[in-house]
């Protein structure tokens, strides 16, 4: 007997002996003291490891564990208020066991006997963030074990008990966001289990308090959001730090509201009708109708119903800002696609006969009320003493009666059109800020895109009239009026004073297309098209002015073009930006992209109008059924791709070396083909052919020469489509070849830019390509002496050598060979034939320069009759 006092720790942790040793330790230390604390923690830690090892390798381990009821020690120790140090290890051991155990029988044993439930209801010290985190994690792990076979271990039908769920939802509003996330995961896992009796329990005992609280807190956050978006600091563009804090807060509020909506959508998607009915009713009654619908369409007798807290609350904060209301409603339709919720809400928004719709909806409330709400609440209170949810008291939630009166009072106000729609329409008129218009458009768009909403609610209104007559909800002439409004927004953007943002225009156009285009057919009146056309005509003179004085016009134009085609408009992403809730900003220093604010300065104004022009032009082309023929200016997809074989016969080739960063040299041949800089290596089989190793359109290149390196050039290649740059260092045999290459590239660049400016002039319907600046001014500041020197030459020589005859026969180095699979021929052929004479090899550099400018001038007269010298 005495010998056994001295416990011998077995060497091998993964053995039955070790578990026996732990058993002895636990039975000898049933009371936690300061002295055995560490030993106990160590024992529980090892226990996890042995059990899982046993689960996978040695069944006798688990048998021993079960025979000796070792699970009881967990409980016994937890019951002692063992201190957080031991508690955390216990919870982690439980986590490890339940997460890693594979043997079903063992799992079922552990779950039976109510052991786990006893642990769940144990009142631990949740003020300790570790205890809480490990505890919630434990509950979450268990929730992943829920299915039809295991549910009865957790939910006891006889005693009407489901501690896993009821304990977890107590933390649903915990300040720690991860804790909240784990609780939400658990609830969703529970709703997935199709056990009728359990779901009935959830509905009867917890739905009202849990959902009511969820909705109540959403409402509270919505009001906070409203308040913080309203409390606009003096000017959005000033006071940087205050601004930042303020924006962060707003962004947080919006993000967590979106989280909530996604959560609602996840619950509703679980298709548990008995729960969803309750949730939908709560949402409609306590959030959507009183906050959103009533803010859009204040009921006349709203305030007259003098009953208790709800109306008091309403009096203080009766209506939300309409912009925010539209924004939030849009989010609902963007995120939630469940018919049960979106249909009643859409009816409120679109219904032309409010009372009738209400009857429909009201029926469901009454039905529901009879079956669920009133009795639950009492039961909940009685059964679980006020601790099932120590949250807002339920009486506060129980406002359906008052609301009913409010809603009923609405019946009497009989209006021809839905008051909500009326209100949305009035927001579409842009006065000072385009925010309301933007949100109004987004809302209607989100409605029409919502997959949970039956088409009948908006057919003929948000889509072209398909049949004669009206939808049950909206009159047809409302579609026309909406088109009017949208077309007016398009007109508004053509004003020289900018107050409509590009994002608003894009949304307006998107919605307009939705309203007027169906299966490639257009349904729009000539009058409306004429208005849109006029808007474009009004932008043109503005753009022409910018074109003349803005040196970077070409770059801006191309950039806007690619920006427009970069990605499809994603309304959900657009609206996840909380800065939209602030008054439209001007300053780029806000960090808001230009499309979501108003332009500041001429460059941005230029961009703004280019963008508007491109969008309106594209819209008109859609209506006219025209194909795009003029854009993009340069089809960069036609750039020679890596490893393309090219016939180089007759092309100028300059030998050079590419110098890599590490100094490695690779021999290449530089040539200019189809307005592209091409670096080739000789083709392995065909003589006179090369294989493209690097290519770039000349207008996207920048050539610099470093002063003390006479033989090398740095070439920066911009990829305007992907916004990437790539620099290569080229070394030539001598400085003459180096200079020749440089001149060639620079000339080519000027020529290419010239050509594109002409294309733009064409688009802008200008008589000539007149600019106030020299064409060869590069986009970069001219840091380099030689370059500006070159510029001078260009201008100078073109004047002097104007009458240079252009009649030489061309070797046509600028044309690519027919065999190559580069297909940009159409582009080069746009140009008048005389460009082909340009690169006659015998020309000296300066002659070439003159030719460039001159031939440009020759081209223009042919086309437009008038030309200005550069």
């Amino acid at each position: 007997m005495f010998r056994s006092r001295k416990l011998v720790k077995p060497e091998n942790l993964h053995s039955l002996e070790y578990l026996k040793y732990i058993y002895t330790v636990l039975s000898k230390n049933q009371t936690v003291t300061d002295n055995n604390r560490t030993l106990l923690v160590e024992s529980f830690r090892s226990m996890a490891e042995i059990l899982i090892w046993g689960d996978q390798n040695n069944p006798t381990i688990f048998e021993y564990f079960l025979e000796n009821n070792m699970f009881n020690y967990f409980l016994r120790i937890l019951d002692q208020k063992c201190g957080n140090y031991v508690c955390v290890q216990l919870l982690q051991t439980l986590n490890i066991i339940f997460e890693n155990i594979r043997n079903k029988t063992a799992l079922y044993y552990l779950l039976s006997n109510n052991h786990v439930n006893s642990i769940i209801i144990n009142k631990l010290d949740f003020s300790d963030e570790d205890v809480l985190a490990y505890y919630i994690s434990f509950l979450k792990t268990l929730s992943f074990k829920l299915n039809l076979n295991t549910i009865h271990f957790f939910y006891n039908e006889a005693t009407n008990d489901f501690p896993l769920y009821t304990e977890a939802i107590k933390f649903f509003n915990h300040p720690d966001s991860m804790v909240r996330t784990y609780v939400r995961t658990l609830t969703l896992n529970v709703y997935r289990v199709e056990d009728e009796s359990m779901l009935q329990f959830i509905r009867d005992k917890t739905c009202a308090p849990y959902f009511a609280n969820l909705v109540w807190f959403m409402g509270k956050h919505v009001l906070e959001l409203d308040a913080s978006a309203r409390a606009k600091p003096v000017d959005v563009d000033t006071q940087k730090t205050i601004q930042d804090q303020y924006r962060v807060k707003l962004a947080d509020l919006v993000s967590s509201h979106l989280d909530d909506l996604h959560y609602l959508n996840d619950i509703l998607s679980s298709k548990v009708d008995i729960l969803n009915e309750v949730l939908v009713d709560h949402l409609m009654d306590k959030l959507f109708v009183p906050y959103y619908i009533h803010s859009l369409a204040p009921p006349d007798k709203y305030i007259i119903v003098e009953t208790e807290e709800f109306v008091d609350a309403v009096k203080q904060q009766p209506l939300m800002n309409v912009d925010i209301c539209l924004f939030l409603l849009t989010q609902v339709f963007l995120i939630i696609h469940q018919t049960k919720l979106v249909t009643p809400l859409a009816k409120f928004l679109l219904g032309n006969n409010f009372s009738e719709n209400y009857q429909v909806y009201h029926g469901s409330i009454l039905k529901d009320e009879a079956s669920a709400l009133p009795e639950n609440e009492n039961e909940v209170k009685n059964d679980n003493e006020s601790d099932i949810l120590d949250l807002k008291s339920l009486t506060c939630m129980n406002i359906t009666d008052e609301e009913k009166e409010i809603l009923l009072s609405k019946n009497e106000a009989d209006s021809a059109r839905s008051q909500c729609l009326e209100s949305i329409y009035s927001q579409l008129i842009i006065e000072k800020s385009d925010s309301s218009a933007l949100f109004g458009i987004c809302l209607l768009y989100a409605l029409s895109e919502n997959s949970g909403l039956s088409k009948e609610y908006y057919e003929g209104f948000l889509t072209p009239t398909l049949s004669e007559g009206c939808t049950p909800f909206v009159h047809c002439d409302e579609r026309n009026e909406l088109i009017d409004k949208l077309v007016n927004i398009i007109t508004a953007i053509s004003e020289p004073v900018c107050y409509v943002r590009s994002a608003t225009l894009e949304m307006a156009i998107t919605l307009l297309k939705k309203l007027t285009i169906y299966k490639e057919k257009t349904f729009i009146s000539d009058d409306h098209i004429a208005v849109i056309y006029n808007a474009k005509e009004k932008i043109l003179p503005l753009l022409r002015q910018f074109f003349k004085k803005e040196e970077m016009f070409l770059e801006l134009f191309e950039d806007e073009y690619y920006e427009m085609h970069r990605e499809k408009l994603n309304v959900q992403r657009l609206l996840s930006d909380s800065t939209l809730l602030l008054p439209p900003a001007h300053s780029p220093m806000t960090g808001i992209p230009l499309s979501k604010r108003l332009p500041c300065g001429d460059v941005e104004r230029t961009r703004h109008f280019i963008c508007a022009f491109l969008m309106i032009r594209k819209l008109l082309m859609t209506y006219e059924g025209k194909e795009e023929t003029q854009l993009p200016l340069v089809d960069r997809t036609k750039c020679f791709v890596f490893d393309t074989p090219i016939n180089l016969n007759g092309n100028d080739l300059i030998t050079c070396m590419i110098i890599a960063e590490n100094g490695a040299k690779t021999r290449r041949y530089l040539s200019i083909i189809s307005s592209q800089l091409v670096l080739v290596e000789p083709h392995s089989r065909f003589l006179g052919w090369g294989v493209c190793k690097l290519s770039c359109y000349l207008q996207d290149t920048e050539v610099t020469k470093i002063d003390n390196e006479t033989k090398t050039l740095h070439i920066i290649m911009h990829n305007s489509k992907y916004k990437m740059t790539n620099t290569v260092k080229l070394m030539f045999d001598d400085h003459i070849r180096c200079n020749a290459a440089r001149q060639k590239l620079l000339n080519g660049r000027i020529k290419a830019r010239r050509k594109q400016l002409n294309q733009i002039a064409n688009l802008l319907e200008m008589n000539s390509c007149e600019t106030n600046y020299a064409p060869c001014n590069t986009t970069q500041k001219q840091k380099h002496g030689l370059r500006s020197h070159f510029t001078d030459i260009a201008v100078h020589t073109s004047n002097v050598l104007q009458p240079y005859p252009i009649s030489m026969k061309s070797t046509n180095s600028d044309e690519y060979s027919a065999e190559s699979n580069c297909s940009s021929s159409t582009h080069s052929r746009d140009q008048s034939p005389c460009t082909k004479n340009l690169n006659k090899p015998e020309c000296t550099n300066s002659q070439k320069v003159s030719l460039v400018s001159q031939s440009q001038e020759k081209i223009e007269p042919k086309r437009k009759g008038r030309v200005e010298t550069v």
Partner: protein
Amino acid sequence: MSYAYLFKYIIIGDTGVGKSCLLLQFTDKRFQPVHDLTIGVEFGARLVAIETKPIKLQIWDTAGQEAFRSITRSYYRGAAGALLVYDITRRDTFNHLTTWLEDARQHSNSNMVIMLIGNKSDLEAKREVKKEEGEAFAREHGLVFMETSAKTSDNVEEAFINTAKEIYEKIQEGVFDINNEANGIKIGPQHSTGNSSIPGGNNRASGNGCC
């Protein structure tokens, strides 16, 4: 136990790459690999020292919840650091990185520090993804990269601690708004700037989560 800051991490990547094992290995590295023993866990906390400051790391793993959009969203949003894990013996897990990264970037706060982890470096014979490829991916996307083994615990410590260092640097630079708990950073209960170094440096007291 007191700490200067608490950083919340999330751990993401395809199923089976070893997230749960990494987490347990880090929070309680006494779990020795024997007989192909598979032990993982989905939550863990540990105290580490960064520039002598005690920092508590909480790692939250929410594998298996991809079905719920709302969960993914809030999970990303509440974290200051993320370990993006792939398995060097399974190319598909590497190929999915872009999707994971897009998700992370879309939902997380823009300052979240992301560490790329190529796990199971002990299985050199079965390697399908070269170390250079991991490095290149990390460089291209501006991530820190490391190959680890949850089995031999090689680099596991470093992965978690380097991430913490980077977050800490961002705090020093004032990039992170530490007053906003939504960012996954919490200031400790008794935040003192004095000499709050942990005795024994990196050495945890026994038991995980003791901090």
